[in-house]
Protein backbone atom coordinates (compact mmCIF):
# COMPACT_ATOMS: atom_id res chain seq x y z
CA UNK A 1 0.00 0.00 0.00
CA UNK A 2 1.36 3.39 -0.92
CA UNK A 3 1.44 5.77 2.02
CA UNK A 4 -0.82 8.76 1.45
CA UNK A 5 1.29 10.72 3.96
CA UNK A 6 3.32 12.56 1.30
CA UNK A 7 0.06 13.38 -0.44
CA UNK A 8 -1.14 15.22 2.67
CA UNK A 9 2.19 17.01 2.99
CA UNK A 10 1.65 18.20 -0.56
CA UNK A 11 -1.87 19.38 0.23
CA UNK A 12 -0.65 21.27 3.28
CA UNK A 13 2.35 22.94 1.73
CA UNK A 14 0.55 23.68 -1.51
CA UNK A 15 -2.20 25.37 0.43
CA UNK A 16 0.33 27.52 2.27
CA UNK A 17 2.02 28.62 -0.95
CA UNK A 18 -1.29 29.34 -2.60
CA UNK A 19 -2.49 31.36 0.39
CA UNK A 20 0.23 33.92 -0.18
CA UNK A 21 -0.66 37.31 -1.71
CA UNK A 22 -1.12 37.10 -5.44
CA UNK A 23 -2.62 33.64 -5.34
CA UNK A 24 -6.34 33.26 -5.67
CA UNK A 25 -7.68 30.55 -3.39
CA UNK A 26 -11.18 29.61 -2.40
CA UNK A 27 -10.60 27.51 0.70
CA UNK A 28 -13.39 25.51 2.17
CA UNK A 29 -13.88 23.80 5.50
CA UNK A 30 -11.08 24.01 7.98
CA UNK A 31 -8.61 25.69 5.67
CA UNK A 32 -10.83 28.76 5.53
CA UNK A 33 -10.54 29.04 9.30
CA UNK A 34 -6.85 28.22 9.38
CA UNK A 35 -6.22 31.38 7.39
CA UNK A 36 -8.22 33.39 9.98
CA UNK A 37 -6.37 31.80 12.91
CA UNK A 38 -2.95 32.49 11.41
CA UNK A 39 -3.90 36.07 10.63
CA UNK A 40 -5.34 36.67 14.11
CA UNK A 41 -2.17 35.50 15.83
CA UNK A 42 -0.03 37.68 13.59
CA UNK A 43 -1.98 40.74 14.71
CA UNK A 44 -1.27 40.20 18.43
CA UNK A 45 1.95 41.52 19.90
CA UNK A 46 3.41 38.59 21.83
CA UNK A 47 7.11 39.31 21.49
CA UNK A 48 7.74 39.59 25.24
CA UNK A 49 6.45 36.05 25.94
CA UNK A 50 8.64 32.95 25.79
CA UNK A 51 7.04 30.37 23.50
CA UNK A 52 7.22 27.29 25.76
CA UNK A 53 7.07 28.84 29.22
CA UNK A 54 3.57 27.48 29.93
CA UNK A 55 4.47 23.82 29.39
CA UNK A 56 4.98 21.81 32.57
CA UNK A 57 6.17 18.22 32.96
CA UNK A 58 3.56 15.56 33.76
CA UNK A 59 2.84 15.24 37.47
CA UNK A 60 1.17 11.86 37.45
CA UNK A 61 2.50 9.93 40.44
CA UNK A 62 4.00 6.47 39.94
CA UNK A 63 1.66 3.51 40.04
CA UNK A 64 0.60 2.58 43.56
Amino acid at each position, binding site marked *: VTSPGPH*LVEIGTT*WWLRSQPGHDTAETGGFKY*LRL*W*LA*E*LERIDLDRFEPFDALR*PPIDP*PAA
Partner: protein
Amino acid sequence: MTSGRSVSELAALLRGGECSAVEIATSALEAVEEAEPRLRAFITITARRALAQARAVDLAIAQGRDLGPLMGVPWAVKDVFATEGIPTTGGSDALRDHRPGPDAEIVSRMDRAGAVLVGKTNLHELGWGLSREIGRTNNPHDVSLGSGGSSGGSAAAVACGAIPLAVGTDGGGSVRMPAAYCAIVGLKPTHGRISMAGHLPAAWSVGDAGPMARSVVDVASAFSVLTGQRAGPASHGRSELRIGLVAEAAEGASAEVGEAYAAATSALASSFALDEVQLDLSGAFSAWAITYACELSDALRHWLAGRIGETSPELQEIIAMGLAVPAPSYLQAQRLRTRLFHDVEAALRTREVLVTPGVLGPPPATEDYWTDDEATGNSWLSPLNLTGHPAVVLPLGRPGSGASMQVIGRYGDDEGLLAAALRIEELLTARSQPRS
Protein backbone atom coordinates in the same frame (compact mmCIF):
# COMPACT_ATOMS: atom_id res chain seq x y z
CA MET B 1 -30.96 -2.55 39.89
CA THR B 2 -28.06 -0.27 38.93
CA SER B 3 -29.81 2.21 36.66
CA GLY B 4 -29.37 5.75 37.89
CA ARG B 5 -27.52 4.74 41.06
CA SER B 6 -24.39 6.58 42.14
CA VAL B 7 -20.97 5.13 42.94
CA SER B 8 -21.58 5.41 46.69
CA GLU B 9 -25.07 3.86 46.42
CA LEU B 10 -23.72 0.86 44.53
CA ALA B 11 -20.85 0.51 46.99
CA ALA B 12 -23.35 0.54 49.88
CA LEU B 13 -25.48 -2.16 48.20
CA LEU B 14 -22.40 -4.30 47.71
CA ARG B 15 -20.94 -3.80 51.19
CA GLY B 16 -24.34 -4.27 52.80
CA GLY B 17 -24.61 -7.67 51.16
CA GLU B 18 -27.79 -6.66 49.34
CA CYS B 19 -26.36 -7.76 46.02
CA SER B 20 -23.21 -9.20 44.52
CA ALA B 21 -20.76 -7.58 42.13
CA VAL B 22 -21.89 -10.09 39.47
CA GLU B 23 -25.50 -8.96 39.92
CA ILE B 24 -24.47 -5.30 39.61
CA ALA B 25 -22.40 -6.01 36.50
CA THR B 26 -25.21 -8.05 34.93
CA SER B 27 -27.70 -5.27 35.59
CA ALA B 28 -25.36 -2.64 34.12
CA LEU B 29 -24.73 -4.75 31.01
CA GLU B 30 -28.50 -5.15 30.53
CA ALA B 31 -29.01 -1.38 30.87
CA VAL B 32 -26.25 -0.72 28.35
CA GLU B 33 -27.73 -3.22 25.87
CA GLU B 34 -31.17 -1.67 26.27
CA ALA B 35 -29.96 1.90 25.68
CA GLU B 36 -27.55 1.07 22.88
CA PRO B 37 -29.95 1.03 19.91
CA ARG B 38 -31.07 4.59 20.75
CA LEU B 39 -27.69 6.05 21.74
CA ARG B 40 -24.76 4.23 20.04
CA ALA B 41 -22.68 5.11 23.09
CA PHE B 42 -20.46 2.01 22.87
CA ILE B 43 -18.10 0.61 20.27
CA THR B 44 -17.36 -2.58 22.21
CA ILE B 45 -19.29 -4.07 25.13
CA THR B 46 -16.87 -6.07 27.28
CA ALA B 47 -19.36 -8.45 28.92
CA ARG B 48 -16.98 -11.38 29.39
CA ARG B 49 -14.28 -9.22 30.99
CA ALA B 50 -16.86 -7.46 33.17
CA LEU B 51 -18.30 -10.68 34.56
CA ALA B 52 -14.82 -12.10 35.23
CA GLN B 53 -13.85 -8.93 37.10
CA ALA B 54 -17.11 -8.97 39.04
CA ARG B 55 -16.51 -12.57 40.11
CA ALA B 56 -13.04 -11.52 41.33
CA VAL B 57 -14.61 -8.70 43.34
CA ASP B 58 -17.11 -11.07 44.93
CA LEU B 59 -14.22 -13.36 45.85
CA ALA B 60 -12.34 -10.43 47.41
CA ILE B 61 -15.39 -9.53 49.49
CA ALA B 62 -15.75 -13.14 50.61
CA GLN B 63 -12.11 -13.01 51.73
CA GLY B 64 -12.72 -9.81 53.67
CA ARG B 65 -10.68 -7.58 51.35
CA ASP B 66 -11.78 -3.99 50.62
CA LEU B 67 -10.46 -2.66 47.31
CA GLY B 68 -11.69 0.91 47.82
CA PRO B 69 -14.55 3.19 46.80
CA LEU B 70 -14.90 1.84 43.27
CA MET B 71 -15.07 -1.82 44.23
CA GLY B 72 -17.71 -3.49 42.04
CA VAL B 73 -18.64 -0.22 40.31
CA PRO B 74 -19.40 -0.57 36.57
CA TRP B 75 -17.52 1.88 34.35
CA ALA B 76 -16.62 2.46 30.72
CA VAL B 77 -13.59 3.93 29.00
CA LYS B 78 -13.33 5.95 25.81
CA ASP B 79 -12.06 3.70 23.04
CA VAL B 80 -8.66 5.35 22.87
CA PHE B 81 -7.10 3.49 25.80
CA ALA B 82 -5.54 0.07 25.30
CA THR B 83 -7.27 -2.96 26.78
CA GLU B 84 -5.62 -6.37 26.70
CA GLY B 85 -7.19 -8.62 24.09
CA ILE B 86 -9.95 -6.15 23.20
CA PRO B 87 -9.84 -3.87 20.13
CA THR B 88 -8.99 -0.19 20.62
CA THR B 89 -10.44 1.48 17.55
CA GLY B 90 -10.13 5.18 18.32
CA GLY B 91 -13.55 5.39 16.69
CA SER B 92 -11.88 4.92 13.32
CA ASP B 93 -12.87 2.61 10.49
CA ALA B 94 -9.13 2.31 9.83
CA LEU B 95 -8.52 0.71 13.26
CA ARG B 96 -11.37 -1.79 13.48
CA ASP B 97 -9.11 -4.64 14.60
CA HIS B 98 -6.37 -2.64 16.28
CA ARG B 99 -5.16 -4.38 19.46
CA PRO B 100 -2.34 -2.27 20.86
CA GLY B 101 -1.28 -4.48 23.75
CA PRO B 102 -1.56 -4.53 27.54
CA ASP B 103 -4.05 -2.45 29.51
CA ALA B 104 -3.41 1.29 29.63
CA GLU B 105 -2.20 2.54 33.01
CA ILE B 106 -5.58 4.01 33.97
CA VAL B 107 -7.36 0.79 33.03
CA SER B 108 -4.96 -1.12 35.28
CA ARG B 109 -5.55 1.32 38.14
CA MET B 110 -9.33 1.00 37.86
CA ASP B 111 -8.95 -2.78 37.63
CA ARG B 112 -6.85 -2.91 40.82
CA ALA B 113 -9.49 -0.77 42.55
CA GLY B 114 -12.14 -3.37 41.70
CA ALA B 115 -14.02 -1.26 39.14
CA VAL B 116 -15.76 -3.40 36.50
CA LEU B 117 -15.19 -2.41 32.86
CA VAL B 118 -18.43 -2.92 30.90
CA GLY B 119 -17.31 -1.39 27.62
CA LYS B 120 -15.40 0.99 25.42
CA THR B 121 -17.23 4.10 24.40
CA ASN B 122 -17.86 5.83 21.09
CA LEU B 123 -16.04 9.01 20.13
CA HIS B 124 -15.24 11.31 17.27
CA GLU B 125 -12.65 9.55 15.17
CA LEU B 126 -9.32 9.85 17.02
CA GLY B 127 -10.81 12.88 18.74
CA TRP B 128 -11.61 14.77 15.57
CA GLY B 129 -13.26 13.06 12.60
CA LEU B 130 -16.52 11.16 12.22
CA SER B 131 -16.55 7.48 11.43
CA ARG B 132 -19.07 6.75 8.66
CA GLU B 133 -19.39 3.16 9.88
CA ILE B 134 -19.80 3.73 13.62
CA GLY B 135 -21.75 6.99 13.54
CA ARG B 136 -22.39 9.59 16.20
CA THR B 137 -23.65 9.07 19.75
CA ASN B 138 -27.16 10.45 20.28
CA ASN B 139 -28.08 12.59 23.25
CA PRO B 140 -30.00 10.65 25.94
CA HIS B 141 -32.17 13.70 26.67
CA ASP B 142 -33.21 14.06 23.01
CA VAL B 143 -31.99 11.46 20.54
CA SER B 144 -32.49 13.81 17.61
CA LEU B 145 -29.53 15.76 18.98
CA GLY B 146 -25.89 14.76 19.33
CA SER B 147 -24.07 14.24 22.59
CA GLY B 148 -21.11 16.42 21.59
CA GLY B 149 -17.58 15.19 21.60
CA SER B 150 -15.27 13.79 21.38
CA SER B 151 -16.09 11.81 24.56
CA GLY B 152 -19.79 11.71 23.61
CA GLY B 153 -20.17 7.98 24.19
CA SER B 154 -18.80 8.23 27.73
CA ALA B 155 -21.12 11.15 28.50
CA ALA B 156 -24.22 9.45 27.09
CA ALA B 157 -23.53 6.14 28.86
CA VAL B 158 -23.44 7.98 32.20
CA ALA B 159 -26.27 10.42 31.45
CA CYS B 160 -28.72 7.65 30.50
CA GLY B 161 -28.14 6.05 33.91
CA ALA B 162 -26.77 2.74 32.62
CA ILE B 163 -23.46 3.19 34.45
CA PRO B 164 -22.40 5.70 37.12
CA LEU B 165 -18.93 6.41 35.81
CA ALA B 166 -16.90 6.72 32.61
CA VAL B 167 -13.56 8.10 31.54
CA GLY B 168 -13.05 10.34 28.53
CA THR B 169 -10.24 12.48 27.24
CA ASP B 170 -10.17 16.23 26.78
CA GLY B 171 -7.83 17.84 24.26
CA GLY B 172 -10.08 20.79 23.44
CA GLY B 173 -13.13 20.46 25.66
CA SER B 174 -13.80 16.81 24.77
CA VAL B 175 -14.82 15.80 28.30
CA ARG B 176 -16.43 19.07 29.34
CA MET B 177 -18.44 19.77 26.17
CA PRO B 178 -20.32 16.43 26.07
CA ALA B 179 -20.71 16.58 29.86
CA ALA B 180 -22.46 19.93 29.42
CA TYR B 181 -24.62 18.70 26.53
CA CYS B 182 -25.62 15.54 28.41
CA ALA B 183 -26.05 17.30 31.79
CA ILE B 184 -23.45 15.41 33.81
CA VAL B 185 -20.23 16.36 35.63
CA GLY B 186 -16.93 16.13 33.73
CA LEU B 187 -13.38 16.90 34.86
CA LYS B 188 -10.40 17.92 32.76
CA PRO B 189 -7.58 17.55 35.27
CA THR B 190 -4.38 19.54 35.43
CA HIS B 191 -2.24 18.55 32.45
CA GLY B 192 -0.30 15.43 33.37
CA ARG B 193 -2.16 14.60 36.59
CA ILE B 194 -3.58 11.37 35.11
CA SER B 195 -1.38 8.95 33.20
CA MET B 196 -1.89 8.81 29.43
CA ALA B 197 0.28 5.69 29.07
CA GLY B 198 -1.50 3.32 26.70
CA HIS B 199 -3.46 6.06 24.89
CA LEU B 200 -3.51 6.11 21.08
CA PRO B 201 -1.37 8.83 19.46
CA ALA B 202 -2.96 12.25 19.98
CA ALA B 203 -2.28 15.95 20.52
CA TRP B 204 -0.09 15.41 23.55
CA SER B 205 0.45 18.82 25.12
CA VAL B 206 -3.25 19.74 25.34
CA GLY B 207 -4.95 16.39 26.07
CA ASP B 208 -5.76 14.63 29.34
CA ALA B 209 -7.94 11.81 30.61
CA GLY B 210 -10.85 12.86 32.81
CA PRO B 211 -13.63 11.17 34.79
CA MET B 212 -17.32 11.76 34.02
CA ALA B 213 -20.18 11.01 36.43
CA ARG B 214 -23.50 12.37 37.64
CA SER B 215 -22.06 14.12 40.72
CA VAL B 216 -18.87 15.82 41.83
CA VAL B 217 -18.32 13.31 44.61
CA ASP B 218 -18.36 10.40 42.13
CA VAL B 219 -15.94 12.26 39.85
CA ALA B 220 -13.70 12.83 42.88
CA SER B 221 -13.76 9.14 43.81
CA ALA B 222 -12.68 8.21 40.29
CA PHE B 223 -10.03 10.93 40.22
CA SER B 224 -8.37 9.54 43.35
CA VAL B 225 -8.17 6.07 41.79
CA LEU B 226 -7.04 7.34 38.38
CA THR B 227 -4.19 9.27 39.99
CA GLY B 228 -3.05 6.20 41.90
CA GLN B 229 -4.22 7.33 45.34
CA ARG B 230 -6.00 4.92 47.62
CA ALA B 231 -7.72 7.53 49.76
CA GLY B 232 -10.44 9.87 48.57
CA PRO B 233 -9.71 13.54 47.84
CA ALA B 234 -8.51 15.55 50.82
CA SER B 235 -11.10 17.72 52.49
CA HIS B 236 -10.49 21.41 52.07
CA GLY B 237 -12.83 22.32 54.89
CA ARG B 238 -15.44 25.07 54.72
CA SER B 239 -13.11 28.04 54.49
CA GLU B 240 -14.01 31.12 52.52
CA LEU B 241 -14.49 30.44 48.84
CA ARG B 242 -13.42 33.31 46.59
CA ILE B 243 -14.82 32.97 43.11
CA GLY B 244 -13.82 35.00 40.06
CA LEU B 245 -16.61 35.44 37.53
CA VAL B 246 -14.88 35.67 34.15
CA ALA B 247 -16.24 38.80 32.48
CA GLU B 248 -18.09 38.46 29.17
CA ALA B 249 -17.74 34.67 29.23
CA ALA B 250 -21.50 34.23 28.66
CA GLU B 251 -21.52 36.57 25.68
CA GLY B 252 -23.22 34.85 22.75
CA ALA B 253 -25.03 32.31 24.93
CA SER B 254 -28.52 31.15 23.99
CA ALA B 255 -31.34 32.66 26.07
CA GLU B 256 -31.87 29.46 28.05
CA VAL B 257 -28.17 28.92 28.77
CA GLY B 258 -27.67 32.60 29.62
CA GLU B 259 -30.59 32.68 32.04
CA ALA B 260 -29.56 29.48 33.81
CA TYR B 261 -25.98 30.73 34.13
CA ALA B 262 -27.08 34.14 35.44
CA ALA B 263 -29.33 32.49 38.04
CA ALA B 264 -26.47 30.24 39.14
CA THR B 265 -23.98 33.08 39.49
CA SER B 266 -26.54 35.07 41.50
CA ALA B 267 -26.81 32.11 43.85
CA LEU B 268 -23.00 31.98 44.17
CA ALA B 269 -22.92 35.69 45.01
CA SER B 270 -25.31 35.10 47.91
CA SER B 271 -23.06 32.54 49.58
CA PHE B 272 -19.48 33.13 48.47
CA ALA B 273 -17.11 36.02 47.80
CA LEU B 274 -17.72 36.70 44.12
CA ASP B 275 -16.01 39.31 41.98
CA GLU B 276 -15.55 39.86 38.28
CA VAL B 277 -12.25 39.14 36.59
CA GLN B 278 -11.13 40.41 33.20
CA LEU B 279 -9.18 37.93 31.08
CA ASP B 280 -8.02 38.50 27.53
CA LEU B 281 -9.35 35.66 25.38
CA SER B 282 -8.22 37.17 22.08
CA GLY B 283 -6.31 34.70 19.96
CA ALA B 284 -6.82 31.84 22.42
CA PHE B 285 -8.95 29.68 20.15
CA SER B 286 -6.61 30.30 17.23
CA ALA B 287 -3.59 29.36 19.34
CA TRP B 288 -5.32 26.22 20.56
CA ALA B 289 -6.50 25.19 17.08
CA ILE B 290 -3.05 25.67 15.58
CA THR B 291 -1.37 23.76 18.41
CA TYR B 292 -3.92 20.97 18.21
CA ALA B 293 -3.70 20.65 14.42
CA CYS B 294 0.11 20.59 14.44
CA GLU B 295 0.33 17.99 17.21
CA LEU B 296 -2.42 15.75 15.85
CA SER B 297 -0.88 15.92 12.40
CA ASP B 298 2.54 15.03 13.76
CA ALA B 299 1.16 12.22 15.91
CA LEU B 300 -0.94 10.60 13.20
CA ARG B 301 0.50 11.11 9.75
CA HIS B 302 3.23 8.47 10.05
CA TRP B 303 1.39 6.24 12.51
CA LEU B 304 -1.60 6.04 10.18
CA ALA B 305 0.47 5.80 7.01
CA GLY B 306 -1.13 3.33 4.66
CA ARG B 307 -4.48 3.65 6.42
CA ILE B 308 -5.13 7.38 6.08
CA GLY B 309 -7.34 6.69 3.09
CA GLU B 310 -9.71 4.76 5.38
CA THR B 311 -10.14 7.70 7.75
CA SER B 312 -12.79 10.39 7.52
CA PRO B 313 -12.37 13.53 5.39
CA GLU B 314 -12.41 15.62 8.59
CA LEU B 315 -9.43 13.77 10.03
CA GLN B 316 -7.53 13.94 6.76
CA GLU B 317 -8.21 17.65 6.60
CA ILE B 318 -6.91 18.41 10.11
CA ILE B 319 -3.75 16.39 9.36
CA ALA B 320 -3.20 18.46 6.22
CA MET B 321 -3.97 21.67 8.12
CA GLY B 322 -1.31 20.85 10.70
CA LEU B 323 1.21 20.42 7.90
CA ALA B 324 0.26 23.80 6.46
CA VAL B 325 1.08 25.81 9.60
CA PRO B 326 4.31 27.79 9.22
CA ALA B 327 6.76 27.27 12.11
CA PRO B 328 6.70 30.98 13.13
CA SER B 329 2.91 30.79 13.49
CA TYR B 330 3.24 27.70 15.68
CA LEU B 331 5.72 29.59 17.87
CA GLN B 332 3.37 32.57 18.01
CA ALA B 333 0.64 30.21 19.27
CA GLN B 334 2.99 29.03 22.02
CA ARG B 335 3.74 32.63 23.00
CA LEU B 336 0.03 33.27 23.37
CA ARG B 337 -0.20 30.11 25.44
CA THR B 338 2.41 31.56 27.82
CA ARG B 339 0.50 34.84 28.11
CA LEU B 340 -2.79 33.07 28.82
CA PHE B 341 -1.20 30.73 31.37
CA HIS B 342 0.18 33.64 33.38
CA ASP B 343 -3.09 35.59 33.09
CA VAL B 344 -5.08 32.67 34.54
CA GLU B 345 -2.44 32.11 37.23
CA ALA B 346 -2.65 35.77 38.23
CA ALA B 347 -6.44 35.64 38.44
CA LEU B 348 -6.23 32.59 40.71
CA ARG B 349 -3.68 34.15 43.06
CA THR B 350 -6.42 35.83 45.08
CA ARG B 351 -9.29 33.47 44.26
CA GLU B 352 -9.74 29.72 44.74
CA VAL B 353 -11.65 29.24 41.48
CA LEU B 354 -12.93 31.03 38.37
CA VAL B 355 -16.26 30.33 36.70
CA THR B 356 -17.53 30.53 33.10
CA PRO B 357 -20.38 28.81 31.26
CA GLY B 358 -19.55 25.31 29.98
CA VAL B 359 -21.06 25.58 26.51
CA LEU B 360 -23.12 28.46 25.16
CA GLY B 361 -26.04 26.68 23.50
CA PRO B 362 -27.95 23.44 23.00
CA PRO B 363 -26.41 20.20 21.71
CA PRO B 364 -25.75 20.02 17.98
CA ALA B 365 -28.42 18.59 15.71
CA THR B 366 -25.85 17.56 13.12
CA GLU B 367 -22.18 16.70 13.13
CA ASP B 368 -21.22 19.47 10.73
CA TYR B 369 -17.71 20.69 11.25
CA TRP B 370 -16.60 24.25 11.05
CA THR B 371 -19.57 26.33 11.95
CA ASP B 372 -18.53 29.89 12.69
CA ASP B 373 -19.56 29.48 16.31
CA GLU B 374 -17.20 26.58 16.83
CA ALA B 375 -14.31 27.95 14.84
CA THR B 376 -14.29 31.47 16.18
CA GLY B 377 -16.69 31.41 19.12
CA ASN B 378 -16.39 32.68 22.66
CA SER B 379 -15.45 29.43 24.38
CA TRP B 380 -13.57 28.97 27.63
CA LEU B 381 -13.10 25.23 27.11
CA SER B 382 -10.12 24.93 24.76
CA PRO B 383 -8.14 27.84 26.31
CA LEU B 384 -7.70 25.68 29.43
CA ASN B 385 -6.25 22.90 27.31
CA LEU B 386 -3.62 25.44 26.33
CA THR B 387 -2.87 26.53 29.89
CA GLY B 388 -3.26 23.08 31.48
CA HIS B 389 -5.40 24.34 34.39
CA PRO B 390 -7.94 21.89 35.85
CA ALA B 391 -11.62 22.57 35.13
CA VAL B 392 -14.86 20.80 35.91
CA VAL B 393 -18.25 21.29 34.25
CA LEU B 394 -21.46 21.10 36.30
CA PRO B 395 -24.97 20.87 34.80
CA LEU B 396 -27.50 23.66 35.32
CA GLY B 397 -31.15 24.01 34.40
CA ARG B 398 -32.99 21.75 31.96
CA PRO B 399 -31.07 18.56 31.10
CA GLY B 400 -30.05 18.60 27.48
CA SER B 401 -30.26 22.39 27.14
CA GLY B 402 -26.49 22.79 27.37
CA ALA B 403 -26.86 24.99 30.45
CA SER B 404 -23.77 24.42 32.55
CA MET B 405 -21.07 26.05 34.63
CA GLN B 406 -17.33 25.51 34.25
CA VAL B 407 -15.29 25.85 37.46
CA ILE B 408 -11.56 26.43 36.93
CA GLY B 409 -8.98 25.64 39.62
CA ARG B 410 -5.36 26.36 40.42
CA TYR B 411 -2.70 24.49 38.44
CA GLY B 412 -1.99 21.17 40.14
CA ASP B 413 -4.66 21.61 42.81
CA ASP B 414 -7.37 19.37 41.35
CA GLU B 415 -8.35 18.33 44.86
CA GLY B 416 -9.01 21.97 45.80
CA LEU B 417 -11.00 22.44 42.60
CA LEU B 418 -13.16 19.38 43.34
CA ALA B 419 -13.73 20.53 46.94
CA ALA B 420 -14.89 23.94 45.65
CA ALA B 421 -17.04 22.34 42.94
CA LEU B 422 -18.68 20.16 45.57
CA ARG B 423 -19.70 23.23 47.57
CA ILE B 424 -21.00 24.95 44.44
CA GLU B 425 -22.93 21.82 43.44
CA GLU B 426 -24.47 21.56 46.94
CA LEU B 427 -25.56 25.19 46.83
CA LEU B 428 -27.04 25.00 43.33
CA THR B 429 -28.79 21.70 44.06
CA ALA B 430 -30.33 23.16 47.23
CA ARG B 431 -31.51 26.21 45.27
CA SER B 432 -33.15 24.05 42.61
CA GLN B 433 -35.17 21.98 45.11
CA PRO B 434 -38.85 23.00 45.30
CA ARG B 435 -39.66 24.79 48.58
CA SER B 436 -42.13 22.92 50.76
